[in-house]
Structures are given as C-alpha cells and as structure tokens.
C-alpha cells in the first residue's frame, strides 16, 4: 500500500492490520515516553488547502510522536484561476524532500490526482477531499467501535461482523459517511444510511431510510453515528429549517433515551449541539466522541508508520 486515498481500496486484511497497528500505537500513547524513533529523519507535510483544526492537529501530533519532522502548509483554495496550481504547489514542496504528504483539499479527487498524475512520487494520505472521502476518520471510527464492542485489549485481529451501524444526517455531502460505509462493510458491519431524501446519496449498497424514528426501532443499531449538518444546506433548500431538521433527524433527548443503553453514540465533530445531537447524548456514558478524537492520533500514527516504513507492525 503506497497511498491511503479511499477506504474502498482497503482489503479486509489490510484494514485489520491497520487497526491492529493502531491498537499498538494506543499502547505507545499510554506509556510515559509517548514517542517512537521510527520516523526520525523523515519529513511529513501537512498540505491543507482547506481549513481544518482537529484533523491537522491530530496528524501533527501523530507525526511528532513518531519523531518525524513535520511541515505545516496551508493555503486557501487552489486552482489555475486562483494563482498557483495544485501541481506547482505540490512539486515545489516535494522538491525539498518529502516522505509523505497529508492532503486536505476541497476538490474531490485532489489526493487521487497527486497520487496518479505523475507530478510527484510520494505517498499520499487523504485527510479529506471535498465530498469524497476521509479515510483516517473511518479508521478511527472503526477502531473506536472495535474497542467498544470487543473491549480494549481484546481487539486484535477482530472484525465487526454483524455490528449494526446507523449513519444519520447529511450523507450526500459527507466524506465521513462515504469512507465509513466502505470500511465498515469491509469489516463485516451492517451499514444503514438515515437522511432526508434531499441529503441521501444515490448508489451505495447500504440500507437507506428516511424516517429516523422508524429506522431506529427497526434496526436496533449498535452504533448511531450523527453527522454535522451544515447550515448552508438549509439555505440551499435541502431542508426547511433548523427546528424541522432537529425534530425529524436530530438525536434529541427523547430519541437518545429510547435507544438501548448499550448503543454507542458517535460524531466526527465539530458538533452542532442542540441541532443534530443533544448535549445529553453527546456527553453520556454511551458517547464515544472523546475516544474517537484520541483514537484519531493512534490511527494516524499507524497510517504514517505503515505508508512510510512499509511495515505492518511496530515489532516486525
């Protein structure tokens, strides 16, 4: 595996070994000295063409824990019409000697172009491209689900067979939902999309539902993953108002209380508390939201390690 562009590219074996490696990284992160010398003298570039705080910082921490030299590059927008092209930017940065690029871009497919256009010959990690994919988010979600289902410490080589995951919200525009749908299915989980018809994507062989209440009753999900709803969607007539969205597709207190107490609540953040998710749900024991953030570092360490060294485990 040279690049991580889409979770659709991951085989079951590759996914499991990345998750197992992530678990090993979690152990490293619990040690007093949370640093591995593995990527010493390696240079990793955070190439962010779109605003991001959490993903950029998470990758930065991950790279530094592996002793890599990290360069942060951020540019708003990039196209032939707005100054320097993507090609020129990336070739310029690559010329300084780069071992991996972590790429966030508003254009779907931009990381794919960097990997395949022949502009550079450097491993590419997709850190979110437009409305396409966000593979490390899906990996951290899968790691979190695996920990919750099988228990921390007993996850090695485990898949997610039969785990029922309901992804709720603006799926049409969500790179998180796409990456999760591919990866969770590869791991054996049963994926459901729940969204207003206007925000439901075509394609994808998953079960689709418009009515949240009926769907939750019918599915009895092990995991409910709420997605952030962008208020600009309301202005583009995808739904009429915030309050109608909350009433029909929000994880309100009432809906939260009606779930089984074992149901895991997830959210990729940043949350609109009180809109797609109530504070009570977000802050509950069942919520894995903080665990997701912590696992983000573990997963990103595993991905950087694996792509740059080509090894599947720390001790191999």
């Amino acid at each position, binding site marked *: 595996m040279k690049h991580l562009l889409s979770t659709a590219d991951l085989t079951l074996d590759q996914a499991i070994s990345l998750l197992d490696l992530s678990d090993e990284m979690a152990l490293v992160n619990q040690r007093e000295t949370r640093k591995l010398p593995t990527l010493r003298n390696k240079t990793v570039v955070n190439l962010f063409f779109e605003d991001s705080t959490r993903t950029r910082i998470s990758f930065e921490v991950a790279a530094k824990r592996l002793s890599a030299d990290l360069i942060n590059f951020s540019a708003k927008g990039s196209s032939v019409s707005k100054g320097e092209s993507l090609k020129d930017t990336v070739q310029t940065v690559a010329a300084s000697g780069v071992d991996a690029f972590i790429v966030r871009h508003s*254009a779907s497919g931009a990381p794919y172009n960097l990997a395949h256009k022949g502009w550079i010959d450097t491993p590419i990690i997709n850190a979110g491209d437009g409305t396409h994919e966000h593979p490390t988010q899906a990996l951290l979600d899968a790691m979190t689900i695996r920990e919750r289902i099988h228990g921390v410490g007993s996850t090695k080589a485990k898949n997610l067979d039969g785990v029922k995951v309901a992804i709720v919200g603006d799926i049409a525009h969500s790179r998180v939902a796409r990456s999760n749908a591919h990866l969770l299915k590869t791991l054996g989980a049963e994926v459901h999309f729940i969204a207003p018809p206007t925000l439901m994507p075509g394609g994808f062989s998953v079960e689709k539902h418009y009515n949240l209440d009926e769907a939750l009753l019918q599915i009895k999900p092990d995991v409910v993953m709420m997605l952030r709803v962008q208020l600009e969607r309301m202005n583009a007539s995808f739904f009429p108002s915030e309050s109608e969205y909350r009433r029909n597709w929000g994880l309100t207190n009432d809906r939260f209380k009606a779930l089984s107490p074992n149901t895991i609540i997830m959210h990729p953040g940043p949350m609109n508390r009180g809109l797609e998710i109530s504070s009570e749900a977000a802050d509950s024991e069942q919520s894995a939201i903080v665990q997701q953030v912590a696992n983000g570092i573990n997963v990103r360490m595993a991905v950087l390690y694996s792509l740059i060294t080509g090894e599947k485990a720390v001790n191999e």
Partner: protein
Amino acid sequence: MSSFVLKDVQLANGEVTSIKVVAGIIEAIGQALDADSILDCSGLVALPGFVDLHTHLREPGFEASETVLSGSRSAALGGFTALHAMANTNPVADTAGVVEQVQALGVSAGLVDVFPIGAVTAGLEGKQLAELGAMANSRAHVRVFSDDGKCVSDPLLMRRALEYVKAFGGVIAQHAQDPRLTEGAQMNAGPISSELGLAGWPAVAEESIIARDVLLAEHVGSRIHICHVSTKGSVDIIRWAKARGISVTAEVTPHHLLLTDELARTYDPIYKVNPPLRASDDVMALREALIDGTIDVIATDHAPHPLEAKDCEWSAAAPGMVGLEIAESVAQLVLIESGKSSWQRVAEVLSSKPASIAGDESHGAIAIGRPANIAVIDPSAKRKISRATASMSLNNPYADRELPGAVVHTIYKGNFTVQNGVLQQKETNA
C-alpha cells in the same frame, strides 16, 4: 486549372465508380474517365466532405487553445470541408464585426469553409437578444445562432429568438442545460458521482429544457436544433417531438457515442466535458437514435483547452475535449462496424444533414456540377490514436485507443487539403 480523377472509389450508395474533378467542380461520375492525374482509390470510400455544426475555434480571444488556422488543419485531417465556429470567443461573436472577422480568418486559412455561429444573446449573458439580423446580413451570412456553453434558459427570450430568426431562415441551436439544476455540477449524476463525491449534473436538467424548447418551437412554428444530446430521456423527447411534427433536429458528439462516466473514476479531467459523459445505457440509446434518425447529425463539440486547464484537480479543470480528427472513426464504429447501418447514413450524419440544417449549399453531396468537397476514407484502416493532433491542444480523451477508419484524402473546393493522410499546407498560410 488541372483536373483529376478519383478512380474506382466506392460511393456512399455502395456503387464503385470514378469521380472527375475539373476546376473545383465535379464534372463527371462514371467509368473510364480521363484527367491530368488519376488517383487509384480502390478499397476507399468517397463521402461528401464533412460539415461540423459545432466547433470551438477559440479565436478571437483564446489563441493559446486554438486558432482558426490550427482548427482548420485539424478539421481537414478529419475529412471536414466546412465547420461552424461557436460564438463563445472573446469578444463574443455577437456582432457583425466579430463574425466577419472569424469568417475572414477562415478564408485566409483556406482549408475549410468556416461559417461563424452568432450568439443568441448579447455577450452570451442571456438577458437580451444579440443583433441577430445584423449578423445574418453581414458578409458572414450567419444562419445558426447559439449561446453554446450556456443555455438560453429564459423561456421568453428563447421564444423570441426562435420566432425572430424566421425572418432570415435562421435556426437556434440550444445548449440544453437548466442552470439552477446544474449549479456546481461536475459529472453525470448517478451512482458514480455519489461515490466519487463529485456534484451531479442530472439528465433532467437537459431533458426539461429540450421538452420546453420543442414545445416553444411548435408554438411559434419555428425550427430548433438541439446541441450535444447526451441522455436516453432526451432521445425519447426528441423522438416524440418529431412524431408530433415539430421541426426539431439534434446532434450527438463522438464522445457521447463512445465514452461513459465510468472514466470519471480516474479523476482525470481529460474526461470532464459539458454535458458530461453519461452512463452506458445513455450511450446505447444515443447510438440507436443516430441509426434510426431520431438524432440527425454527429457534431464534434471540438473544445480545445491549454494543458494547464486539464493538468489540475477535476473541479478546477475546464470542460471539453477535442474531436475533429476522430469523428469519422466514431461514426464508422457506430454505423458500420455495428452492422446496423450504412455508408449512406454516415454521409448523412457527417455531411448532408448538417449542411441542410445550416443551409450550407455548397456542401453535403457528391454530384455532377457541385463543388468538389469530398472526404475519401479507408474503412479498413485501424489506427491507434495519438494524443497530439493538428489541434494546438492536447485534451484528447481518445489517446491510445484503437479506432476504425482513416481519412486518406480531403478535397475542398477541388483542392487536396489532405492527401494520403498528410495535410497539404497552403503557401499563403506561412
């Protein structure tokens, strides 16, 4: 002026005969003709010189992509003897001055007849009519009007345009695309766009405009031409409109007959085009429609772009692809190799129908007394398409594909613009 004979050439009707050209005119068709030079054309097919209803020559304004001369060269190599230059230049071809300039550049290139298309609305802005009459009455003698690249989306403006051009026998060529339904659109709306996270361009955005416009054309008793039809549903609507007696004609591009939206999976913007590449059932419907006559012509929508407009991320790239030099091959693939149609139909879709839609009287037929505008094809050739063509641009999605058929000679007004596959440079071009 010298005379020549194309000896033992097959005509579109299947007859093998010889064609004698004297002083730019077809003087005789038959056996045992004599002339200053005799070209053995056995195994070759002579078709009336091709007429493209939809070419972007980019001049004036975008000479880094194409010029009238470079586009004319590409056209000649593709077997064309006439082309219609789209109006979305800079300045826009919306006045008599600009269309006369484009026409004059075509005359000076001297390789094909360059017929300028006039804009329907001033500046292609869709707000008020351009001076259609002035362009019609200019030396460029414009008969086809189009805002191509943009849709004339205002129904009232479209109605007026359809009505107004009746005064001089003009036709509106509509780029059917509802702008609101395609805001930010990047590729065909479907399962693949969902998966790739590229904003979808739904078929209904084309079909709803075609449905509206055929009804408008019926209402005002005008004819209408639909540019680059790309969907199965559009074919159904046009078929219905023709059955109803509405005077509608339609074109399909080579790329919509050959390529599908699967290619977007590469995220390579070489495959980005507007309207977008569609699904394979659309391609099949378009092929059937071309065979049965629902779609009247193949038009290239040859749309050159400089390298940097394609060497970038998909959403930043310009839509469009070149096509002049593969049009015959795609026609042959769909109509001949399929075993479903005939050379007669190839001649219709590439020459006689586009000539009649646009009123190009000196094109569209091989007949005694007519100007010698002829494309001679080797139907048995198989060629691997190279990325570089005579076009100045390299946005060629057919590179490395093998296609049937090759243009051997192109004869424009009795002169070889292409002979044995080689462009014949005019000294005056230097």
